[in-house]
């Protein structure tokens, strides 16, 4: 029964959350967390293999439906969750050893705090998996709303005043954004109503909608697409709805921030792609791509000044993920064969690279006790050789320098633009990317390189070192060689995203 695998994938995080809630001691919670996500990752890979073989897997009359696009997002989410859980072990042990929790305003004992993390994270992962596997667009919306709610308390994890402020902004802007998305979903259902209205159970199922999208009502679908773009754009952190991102990423604990930056971005963009396919079929590609290109360029443009004059490296990474959200939106906007393929390639490589950057930032912040550039007087590569060099390599990877894989996806996206003779937006995008590279290099090189300040060597905990080395090696390999099944999955997903049957 191939469908059962979907249930198992959804069941594992729930079970992990329950067990961690019941667990007494920290090592137990860590063990549950890591093993659960490891098993989850294996199952998602199995799902991907299944989808590659069969094309799409669905269960319970199509309520849970996994085609190659959702399989890709599920695999990436599981991978990011696994890597973050491994890193979280080292991260929280370091926090515990350095009594970070003592000065927590509520004074709750550390184990309560850890329990909160180890129960909410699996729920968070469950919500994200649900987004990818839900066939019904309404249920997808509910799942994305669930990701927001589960992460609010993860952002207020340290209980500082600023993390409270970040959580409030995250909740409020997230709430408004998602109500926009809900309104969009309603309008989509309304535009599909005359065609598919009678079947109230499967009415909003994507697989049903996509078949007869061309007969939808054009006027209402246009508004629906606008609202969806604003709604899911808020979750993806597209400008001008990006303002919550820097605060949330710099206040949340690093594993959560990494999952927010890598996994939630994928889910939000997944939602956008689903609706873009419908809009393209009904209104023709021109309407959607105009909007997407404008918002994509706006996001990259907004990221540039903040990268150039940034004071904290945690917020610098936040703006980098806004910039990558913008690039992916551009990819979808340029469309065509290369556009969708480039976008999904970029999503895959981004989900591998971004966690590495966050982990390095986490290590450095825990070591220097600050995330401000001016307080770190450089020369980190002497006291933290692994994190320092990985941070520099990650910077080069994330800004799209050639030997690393992000360059290939950006090249594909730009090639799509040039094939559609959109010269000005493409050239503008290249110029902005160059500016971002300049800003990034100046900040990170000043932080990592420099005279040896004579700080004591820092990298003792293996849990914090090996995920870095593993991810670094993976990024270098991806630069030169991509396993063909992975590329096959991405190509099928791209075929779906660009609207072919």
């Amino acid at each position, binding site marked *: 029964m191939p469908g059962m695998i979907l249930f198992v994938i959804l069941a594992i995080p729930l079970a992990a959350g329950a067990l961690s809630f019941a667990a007494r001691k920290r090592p137990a919670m860590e063990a549950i967390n890591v093993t659960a996500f490891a098993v989850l990752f294996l199952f998602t890979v199995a799902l991907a293999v299944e989808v590659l073989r069969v094309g799409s897997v669905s269960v319970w009359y199509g309520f849970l439906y996994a085609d190659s696009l959702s399989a890709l997002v599920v695999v990436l989410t599981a991978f990011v969750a696994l890597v973050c859980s491994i890193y979280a072990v080292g991260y929280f042990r370091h926090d515990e050893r350095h009594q970070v929790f003592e000065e927590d305003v509520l004074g709750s004992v550390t184990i309560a705090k850890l329990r909160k993390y180890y129960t909410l994270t699996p729920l968070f992962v469950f919500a994200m998996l649900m987004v990818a596997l839900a066939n019904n667009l309404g249920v997808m919306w509910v799942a994305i709303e669930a990701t927001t709610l589960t992460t609010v308390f993860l952002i207020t994890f340290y209980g500082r005043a600023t993390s*409270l402020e970040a959580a409030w902004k995250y909740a409020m802007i997230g709430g408004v954004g998602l109500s926009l998305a809900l309104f969009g979903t309603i309008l989509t259902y309304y535009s599909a109503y005359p065609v598919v209205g009678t079947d109230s159970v499967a009415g909003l199922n994507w697989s049903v909608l996509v078949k007869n999208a061309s007969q939808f009502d054009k006027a209402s679908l246009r508004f629906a697409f606008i609202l969806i773009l604003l709604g899911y754009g808020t979750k993806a952190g597209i400008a001008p709805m990006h303002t919550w991102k820097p605060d949330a990423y710099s206040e949340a604990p690093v594993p959560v921030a990494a999952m927010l930056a890598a996994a939630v971005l994928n889910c939000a963009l997944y939602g956008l792609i689903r609706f873009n396919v419908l809009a393209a079929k009904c209104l023709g590609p021109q309407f959607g791509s105009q909007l997407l290109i404008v918002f994509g360029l706006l996001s990259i443009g907004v990221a540039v000044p903040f990268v150039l004059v940034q004071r904290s490296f945690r917020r610098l990474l936040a703006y980098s993920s806004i910039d990558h959200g913008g690039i992916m939106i551009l990819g979808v906007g340029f469309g065509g064969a290369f556009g969708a393929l480039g976008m999904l390639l970029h999503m895959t490589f981004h989900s591998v690279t971004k966690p590495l950057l966050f982990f390095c930032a986490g290590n450095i912040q825990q070591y220097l006790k600050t995330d401000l550039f001016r307080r770190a007087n450089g020369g980190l590569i002497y006291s933290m050789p692994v994190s320092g060099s990985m941070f520099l390599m990650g910077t080069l990877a994330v800004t799209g320098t050639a030997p690393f894989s992000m360059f290939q996806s950006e090249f594909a996206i730009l090639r799509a633009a040039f094939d559609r003779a959109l010269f000005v937006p493409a050239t503008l995008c290249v110029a902005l990317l160059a500016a971002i590279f300049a800003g990034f290099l100046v900040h990170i090189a000043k932080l990592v390189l420099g005279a040896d300040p004579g700080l004591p060597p820092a990298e003792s905990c293996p849990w914090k070192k090996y995920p870095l080395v593993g991810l670094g090696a993976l990024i270098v390999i991806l630069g030169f060689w991509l396993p063909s099944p992975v590329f096959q999955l991405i190509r099928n997903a791209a075929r779906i995203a660009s609207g072919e049957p």
Partner: protein
Amino acid sequence: MHFYQDPQFGNRMLTLMAAFVLVLQIAMVGQRWLITNIRIFAAQSFLLAGIANTIAYFNHAPHLYIAAFLTLALKALLLPILLERMVKKIDIGQEIAPLINVPLSLLISGGLTTVGYVVAQSFHRPAETASPASLGHNTLAVAISLFLIGFYMMISRRKAFMQVLALLCLENGLFLAAISLTYGMPLIVELGIFFDLLVAVMVLGILVYRIQETFDSMDVSKLSRLRG
């Protein structure tokens, strides 16, 4: 046929209730006391439940009754009680000076209503709605205006609590849009939305409490230390 089966009468009742909902919303924009606002919200939810019932009755859409009952139970009764108990515990009476003064807010709400109508006008297809009690574009227009005014209220209010309330009004607008356009979403989605709403209110309630605890005031404009 009794008067209450006559679709004409149903249509009149719907437009009347929709108008009342809009008036309550605009009143909420002008109102500064928290407790009164909660009560206005409760009344609005009650009316919405009524609209849902009439539509369900006239269009024979059984699952809409469940939605109506949930709105009544949840939004008209349970939530206001919870919110009032919270307001009493924090005992902050009113919002002294909202970000934008009241007359200007009312003007803007009027403007937003017109935007609502213009948008509804541009894409609503009155001809297709088969049932005689065709819901007319005004309930859709009211839904969009409700949504926009709710959004505006979030911007113009300083108190965290009021922003939560504004978010709930926003949700009301969406619910009205759903029932007026497609007689409510598929049941599973309705349940999901209500469940999310409930959790959201609980989460935001805890957050408001924590803000009150840390900043010993609910004024959101104090939350501005994260810059750049």
